[in-house]
């Protein structure tokens, strides 16, 4: 098939002249135009060019092999901690850099070689492969349907109703055993989401110094992080406990506190708020001391610590929980109980 098969009479411009805009089609307008004539590549005509392509592909594959050997060699040679200066990357690990470079070259050279091979040497003759409907012959279809009908009859599936019903019941109950096993996905959280480690009389421990905090340590505009008394960073469950009990302590001028309950729960303007965002539980402590706003870095929820931890921006659904604090007989800050409401993100049964 080639261009000669196509009649120029089918072109719109020709038809315009012949029929003065008549819509009557000439011949089949959807006729297969066929493939354009095959054009050879230089490699198809000139054997020397083909050889050069062959050498290029082989060179790329060899380069990949060399790079792989280089990868293994650099793995053996470079110690893990060795840092070298490489412009423009700066002070980087010699091992990481060598491994990345050699593996990158090894993979790229295989790809480049394959592409060059396919483009210059593999056959590029266009071959049409026509599609046909996929269907069995009428005789085969007839035979299959007849066999099926006979099978239904011989099994007495339609006649013996009891068997059919009980089989359906058995098949529909079997998957239940799989669903029951999902129970092992874990114990229910029960009360864990509602309580934290804070108890009445527990002192507030400065996370920097591991010393109990005194009110006079905390100046207006300062930010301090506290953990419950008796909790050590070496404890096995430290992360689980601090994930709910983390506190940030700030001091406001008492006349700046707009919320009455917040003022009652504070000690001389020192307020203790949960550090866990009520949206999805990111740690928030991006505290702006002039505006008293706390920003969550995950979804930009903003809480006003001078107004009961109210949400003033963002997706958080609840105010930040405040811990009631006071001073004990020795002059240390202490909690007057656990948080009144669950800390952290909302959950189904929170209410």
């Amino acid at each position, binding site marked *: 098939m080639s261009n000669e098969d196509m009649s120029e009479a089918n072109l719109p411009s020709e038809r315009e002249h012949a029929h003065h805009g008549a819509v009557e089609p000439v011949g089949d307008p959807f006729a297969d135009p066929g493939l354009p004539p095959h*054009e*050879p*590549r*230089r*490699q*198809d*005509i000139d054997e020397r060019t083909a050889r050069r392509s062959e050498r290029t592909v082989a060179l790329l594959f060899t380069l990949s092999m060399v790079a792989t050997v280089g990868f293994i060699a650099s793995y053996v040679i470079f110690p893990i901690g060795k*840092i070298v200066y*490489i412009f423009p*990357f*700066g*002070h*980087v*690990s010699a091992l*990481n*850099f060598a491994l990345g470079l050699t593996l990158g070259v090894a993979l790229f050279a295989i790809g480049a070689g394959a*592409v060059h091979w396919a*483009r*210059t040497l593999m056959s*590029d003759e266009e071959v049409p492969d026509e599609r046909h409907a996929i269907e069995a012959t009428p005789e085969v279809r007839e035979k299959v349907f007849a066999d099926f009908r006979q099978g239904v009859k011989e099994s007495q599936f339609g006649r013996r109703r009891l068997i059919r019903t009980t089989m359906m019941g058995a098949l529909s109950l079997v998957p239940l055993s799989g669903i029951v096993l999902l129970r092992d996905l874990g114990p229910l959280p029960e009360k864990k989401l509602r309580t934290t480690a804070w108890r009445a009389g527990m002192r507030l421990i*400065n*996370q*920097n*110094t591991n010393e109990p*905090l005194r009110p*006079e*340590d*905390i*100046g207006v*505009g*300062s*930010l*301090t*992080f506290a953990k419950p008394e008796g909790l050590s960073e070496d404890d096995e469950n430290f992360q689980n406990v601090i994930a709910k009990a983390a506190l940030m302590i*700030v001091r406001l001028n008492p006349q700046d506190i707009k919320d009455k309950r917040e003022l009652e729960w504070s000690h001389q303007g020192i307020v203790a708020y949960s550090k866990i965002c009520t949206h999805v539980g990111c*740690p*928030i*402590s*991006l*505290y*702006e*001391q*002039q*505006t008293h*706003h706390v*920003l969550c*870095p995950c979804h*930009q929820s*903003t809480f006003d610590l001078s107004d009961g931890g109210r949400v003033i*921006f963002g997706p958080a659904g609840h105010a930040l929980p405040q811990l009631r604090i006071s001073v004990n007989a020795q002059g240390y800050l202490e909690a007057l109980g656990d948080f009144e409401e669950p800390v952290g993100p909302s959950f189904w049964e929170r209410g």
Partner: protein
Amino acid sequence: MKKLSARRRHPLAALVVLLFALAATGGLYAAFAPAEKAQADSAQSLATEEGKRLYSVGCASCHGTSGQGTHNGPSLVGVGAAAVDFQVGTGRMPAQQPGAQVPRKKAIYNQAQIDQLAAYIASLGPGPAIPSKQQYSPDGADIANGGQLFRTNCAQCHNSTGKGGALSEGKFAPTLEGVDPKHIYEAMLTGPQNMPNFPDSTMPAKDKKDIIAYLAQVDSSKAESPGGLELGGLGPVSEGLFAWVFGLGALITVAIWVAARTAKARKS
């Protein structure tokens, strides 16, 4: 002697004795008084005097004629010399224009003038003093402890390696790269602008030194980055942007370049 004793009841005798006594006291004081202290005091008051003059010209329009503050600027009574050294030394003050946050810029005053301004402000009320080199120098500090303290207290705003980050309504936590250790120390001590402060009562001086040493280790031109190509060290956003725009872009460009060049002998 007889002459002297004869006139001891003269009406002016008491006056003469008094004059002798005063001269003796004054002479003795001049001989024994600590001369250096007097000189230092006068140098201090001279610096305060000079600082007051600089203050009247450069600062008083916003902070009030005697540092009491106006609606354009906060009161400077009790902010201390450290706050002045930080704000003026990093070029934040005098502020160029009002806005969400006053950015760092080239310092306008030299260190001598800053010290004079600091002396004047310190004379208005007690506040944190400028730290000594021994306090903020990272030598001999515990870098690992500094890293832990930095992650607890600072990383939420300044990023885990001090690259800075965004805050609400146009405010931001600036990068800590290339900041003088003295200024980092003063910022922790005084809490400039919206940054909370970290006084020695909750973060001892040793901890501040450790934090400065940690920053010198991870956030300087000599900082080691085993992976290389940090893309600003800002986390997944800049990395994802780079991968999608430049990584994928490079792949598409190569694919188009390969397909656009025909392998045919006769170029059409």
